[in-house]
């Protein structure tokens, strides 16, 4: 079906107009502006929440930010997140593969994993503090723990939901068990494995913030908590924003890596 094309010359302009200058974009910008306005009104004129800084105050605080300090804190949190996440991947991924792929491993490991899972990672904080002497290792353990379960469960789920015809086809071609795992099962389960990694990195950030707030040993969580205790609230909100931004960046990063590994998926 050949698409009959009219006016190819004005296409570029049309595209620009379509994507930028239309009602949707206007409404989307309005959305954010309205939110800021509502926030300001709530704080300024109701008197109820006078302690909460206005958007303007937060914006002003942006210029008082000491870049050196904030980047050190970001770096610290980031390293912790990364360590925990990679550790979770290193341990969680093989376990997920084993549970999903081998019946015996499933019977042996799954009930144990299932029993520990309902305990929220944050409830592990006291035990962690008890067990690890070093604060860094405490935080890394907690982030690892947060990342572990989403990775295991999504890897496992991804593998067990592979369209059965794919391994069957490969079996006919005479592939061996290892080949089946590497060439068929894992590529087919890849999308869900990456979904799991995205969830994991979200929880990892949450854990880092919680752990840092409690442990008071540097990092963004500590930074926010510190400013809370000295009552510099604009900085607190700024900190929240930075944490959100970092989390979003990590999740985008995983998407980028994912799309690199799954070129076949983002063809359209």
């Amino acid at each position, binding site marked *: 079906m050949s698409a009959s094309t009219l006016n190819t010359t004005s296409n570029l302009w049309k595209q620009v107009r379509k994507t930028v200058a239309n009602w949707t974009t206007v409404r989307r910008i309005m959305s954010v502006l309205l939110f800021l306005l509502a926030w300001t009104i709530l704080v300024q004129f109701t008197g109820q929440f006078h302690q909460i800084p206005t958007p303007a105050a937060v914006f002003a605080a942006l210029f008082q930010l000491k870049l050196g300090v904030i980047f050190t804190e970001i770096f610290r949190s980031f390293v912790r997140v990364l360590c925990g996440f990679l550790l979770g991947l290193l341990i969680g991924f093989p376990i997920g593969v084993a549970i999903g792929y081998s019946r015996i491993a499933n019977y042996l490991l799954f009930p144990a994993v299932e029993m520990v899972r309902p305990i929220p990672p944050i409830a592990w904080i006291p035990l962690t503090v008890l067990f690890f002497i070093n604060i860094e290792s405490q935080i890394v353990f907690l982030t690892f723990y947060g990342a572990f379960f989403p990775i295991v469960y999504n890897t496992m789920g991804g593998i067990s939901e592979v*369209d059965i*015809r*794919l391994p*069957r*086809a*490969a*079996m*006919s*071609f*005479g*592939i061996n068990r290892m*080949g089946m795992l590497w*060439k*068929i099962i894992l*590529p*087919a389960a*890849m999308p869900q494995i990456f979904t799991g990694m995205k969830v994991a990195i979200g929880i990892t950030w949450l854990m880092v913030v919680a752990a840092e707030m409690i442990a008071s040993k540097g990092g963004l969580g500590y930074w926010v908590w510190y400013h809370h205790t000295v009552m510099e609230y604009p900085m607190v909100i700024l900190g929240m924003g930075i944490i959100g931004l970092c989390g979003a960046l990590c999740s985008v990063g995983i998407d980028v890596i994912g799309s690199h590994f*799954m*070129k*076949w*998926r983002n*063809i*359209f």
Partner: protein
Amino acid sequence: MVDSNHKGEVVFENVTRAVQTKKTETIILDHCSFVIESGKLTVLIGPSGCGKTTIINLIAGYEKPDRGKVLIDGKPVAGPDRERLVAFQETALFPWLTCYDNVMFGPLATKVMTREEAHEQAINLLEKVGLGDFLYKYPMQLSGGMMRRAELARALINRPTVMLMDEPFRGLDAMTRELMQEYYLRLVEESHGTHLFVTSEIEEAIFLADRLIIMTNKPSRVKHALDIDLPRPRIASVLRSKRYLELKALTLEILHEEAVKASMASGKADIAIDSGLRT
């Protein structure tokens, strides 16, 4: 009947196969016996849910019979093997491999030929099915008909003794389907292999077959077997011949009865689409 030079004769001897669901056990095949002659194109037709896919799975070795034997050239089926390849419903191309890599998958996994040999044959075969320009496209970039052709090529490069086609053209629109059938027939008539083709379309069945096996509704058995004596090579004009219409009338007669039975059984209430109206 059996040509000793040819390989790939499939015999079903009293095969019974049941499937366990949560609540009940459903018998899918019930003492089913038939022969798929080597070097011929046998078409299996029956109402939906009559266990045609199960037959494919049994021959391919993905499932085992509960009772009875499935024999290939006198030996029971032991498991999946590249001697018996399946073209699946809808297609089961690996979506993460390009068209070319999909075709190369079989030869590289089993290492029966060198990479160069395989490459040459793959290119050859893909040209033949009209995908020469689409070697490095991913399956998702291809149209339905092209995917089916790629799947055919992926199987045929391994030169299977028995080729199993599990409603391979299902879901294509009727016109693409007719063109696919012609493509397929050309390949079959060149290769003279043993083919088993499962379908629920009468037109398709008669147009393709050397021999037509008609199945009954679940639990299924063979209801009727017909030798289709239309001349080969077949082209679309066969569809107008007197003999074709006779065969079609006969098949329709047999199948209509089965279809009514099936529709009564498959709805959980006893509906009869036919009888309800005439009263």
